[in-house]
């Protein structure tokens, strides 16, 4: 097996430059925001937003890799390395999480998580019962455990995949590669189970507990749908930009490959709508005060605009963009939908997180909201680019790559 193209690496500088510019711009904006102490509260929330945004991309790509292995998929072999270059950044994401932990722990005059106000918690008849779960120590332990699991598995999947590349032009390693792939397939099942629990509880810990009174069993699934959509979008967009620069081999961009990717994007957009509607409708219908309050706030005043925008951007617009079979095979259309979905994910997180700044906070798009997102996105892109320039762009050692090349639906 010879794959000259699989040694392809990113040499184009623009991505790196763009990443650095983005990060610097974000840093400057964040700096401006932080120069005024009054902004600390909003900033901590929008930093949380930015962190969750990049976290969903990384963890979603890790899930994509595991899903690829567990199903033994063929079409996605060539795209897997793109997912891996995002998934390899769990360590970076952990470092980016530290400020969230700091905001949670250090600030006393306001609270990112209102459950940090122990006095209030102990007084409240319902909240008092949640203290065994909602306290800083346990919060930190859980976060650490989640990251440990993600880190170990992302290292395993990425490292094994990169090691397989050594076999390019060396047929002795073929048998070893088959064993490696088999091992990855065997471990992907257990990982997906761990992923389901860790992601869902991370969502509960990091976002749902912003309102410690509110609860919904669907929450983990809702977060999951956003995670998968984000991953598919970043993979598609990276693919598109590589294709545009002519860096990605054409034989892996046939209609059949693209259709699979496009259909997944379409399906998960519908899945998101299904989950979001079910959660909303059940709470709207039962109309129990402790649950309805959460939606009531978002269904009135200027927040209603955000809610409608969210439904349009996450579901209605992508649905009609992707409905036709030809659209699902068209890389430009896939990329366009990916942009819409990434904007959607950001609005989704904004909608989940920002109403908790305080009751008076109205939706707005200032530097305080955007700054941290630019900073963290820039950083993530920088590290993704670094990974890509060090490793081959395609999992060239994967024993299934040949079949991927001739993949047909």
């Amino acid at each position, binding site marked *: 097996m010879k794959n000259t193209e699989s040694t392809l690496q990113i040499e184009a500088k623009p991505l790196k430059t763009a990443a650095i510019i983005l990060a610097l711009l974000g840093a400057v904006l964040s700096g401006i925001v932080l120069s005024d102490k009054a902004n600390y509260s909003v900033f901590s929330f929008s930093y949380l937003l930015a962190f969750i945004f990049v976290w969903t991309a990384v963890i979603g790509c890790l899930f994509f890799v595991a899903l690829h292995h567990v199903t033994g998929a063929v079409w996605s072999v060539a795209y897997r390395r793109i997912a891996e270059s995002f998934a390899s950044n769990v360590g970076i994401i952990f470092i980016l999480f530290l400020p969230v932990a700091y905001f949670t722990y250090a600030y006393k005059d306001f609270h990112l998580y209102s459950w940090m106000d122990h006095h209030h918690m102990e007084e409240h008849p319902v909240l008092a019962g949640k203290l065994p779960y909602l306290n800083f120590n346990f919060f930190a332990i859980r976060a650490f455990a989640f990251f440990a699991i993600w880190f170990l598995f992302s290292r395993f999947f990425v490292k094994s995949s990169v090691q397989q590349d050594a076999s390019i032009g060396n047929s002795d390693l*073929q048998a070893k590669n088959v064993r490696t792939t088999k091992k990855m397939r065997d471990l992907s099942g257990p990982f997906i189970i761990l992923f389901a629990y860790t992601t869902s509880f991370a969502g509960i810990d990091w976002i749902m507990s912003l309102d410690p009174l509110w*609860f*919904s*069993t669907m929450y983990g699934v809702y977060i999951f749908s956003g995670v998968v959509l984000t991953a598919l979008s970043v993979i598609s967009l990276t693919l598109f930009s590589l294709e545009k620069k002519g860096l990605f081999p054409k034989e892996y961009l046939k209609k059949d490959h693209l259709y699979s990717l496009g*259909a997944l994007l379409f399906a998960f957009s519908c899945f998101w709508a*299904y989950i979001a509607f079910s959660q909303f409708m*059940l709470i709207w*219908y039962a109309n129990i005060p402790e649950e309805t309050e959460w939606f009531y706030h978002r269904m009135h005043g200027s927040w209603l605009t955000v809610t409608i925008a969210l439904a349009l951007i996450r579901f209605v617009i992508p649905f009609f963009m992707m409905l036709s079979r030809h659209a699902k095979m068209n890389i430009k259309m896939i990329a366009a939908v990916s942009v819409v979905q990434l904007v959607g994910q950001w609005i989704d997180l904004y909608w989940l997180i920002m109403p908790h700044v305080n009751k008076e906070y109205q939706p707005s798009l200032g530097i305080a909201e955007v700054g941290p997102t630019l900073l963290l996105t820039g950083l993530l892109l920088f590290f993704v680019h670094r990974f890509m320039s060090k490793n081959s762009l395609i999992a060239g050692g994967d024993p299934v790559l040949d079949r991927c090349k001739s993949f047909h639906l």
Partner: protein
Amino acid sequence: MSVDTILRPAPLTTREVSFQELDNDINRPLESFPTFRWWIAISITSGMATLFLVGIYYTVFYGIGTWGNNNPVGWGFAIVNFVFWIGIGHAGTLISAILFLLRQAWRTAIARFAEAMTIFAVICALQFPLFHTGRPWLAAFWLLPLPNHNDIWVNFRSPLLWDVFAVSTYGLVSFMFWYTGLVPDFATIRDRAKHPIRKMAYGILSLGWTGSHRAWQHYEKAYLLFAGFATPLVLSVHSVVSFDFAVSVIPGWHTTIFPPYFVAGAIFSGFGMVATLIIIMRKMFKLEYLVTDDHLELMNKVIITTSMMVGFAYITELFIAWYSGVAYERYAFMNRAVGPYAWAYWTMFSCNVIFPQLLWFKKIRRSALLMYPIIILINVGMWFERFVIVVSSLHRDYLPSSWDYFTPTIIDWFLFIGSFGIFLTLMLLFCRFLPTISIAEAKAFSPGAQPSGAHHE
């Protein structure tokens, strides 16, 4: 160690089969006189079905009071069985539609069988709410938006009405999907038939199919579209069934994860039932080379996946019930785990989450004999899941003075066992009169069946 043998999906049949052989083997049960074993089986199942008629006779004659439903538990066995049967049906649509969209060629071996199961399960399911209305001969006016004497319409805000639309759409669409798939096979049977009556019967059913490619072209498109619509439909049906519970304010029912959790559970129980029956079918008709151990393994993988999803939902529910801090929520789940119905809860939990873990072992997944006890337990466990949801949430409501224990009556049991009788009788008839595996699809997917250079699109 070659890549081909390890990482490639297993072949669809254990040996090479000619088209003629496929025709002969799949049609053999249709064209030969039923065996002694078949007659025994159908006498037992139709005997069971008779119990259903007896139960219905009593119910209609004396009223719903003959059932075990009591004051807090207004939805007893009837709704448990309704949800159980609807769930069984879901595997059929999943296999025929979702796996079709995912281009899983292995579905061919089990799709027809599972689709038939869907239709028969929906038929069984419909009986329960229909007779639960009390006066089924008037039910059309309560269930459908028909003009009536009082000038009032049905309540479109009621999830029970959503159910009427969802389940009837589901039944109709499943039937059309199934029938469309059968048309080319009817033509094959028609052209093999020796007896003129047989030829005429299948000829009428085949709608004059000639195998024309101008027809195949539209047929294939239509089949793909059916699959495309059936996929969200199947998700919606069990979601709507879950809405029956989840829109209420009853602790244990009102929980937002219900829709996807019910769908996963439905697929889980449906696959359990498909596996239960198809293992017997392939043995009876000696079709082990078409429904291979590889197929069983793949089905077991779906089963373990959905089992984990159901387990995830159980754990989320328990955790959020505690986390919510709502006294009623907490009590409802404590009551499930240690209350009077704890036996049902733990039966459900162990059958659905604990025992299926054995399917992690490849050896068990690939052995019909070893997996059989597990899938039987899954059938039991999933029935108990509905029992737990319906009965344990209702029997202790907000008003402790009305708390009561639900005990099914003999009529409840007659209807429950009887519905199995109807289902199995229909399955046995299906095996004798219709091809249990799609002949045309089995041919289309066999090696060398497609022109070289052409590709599936």
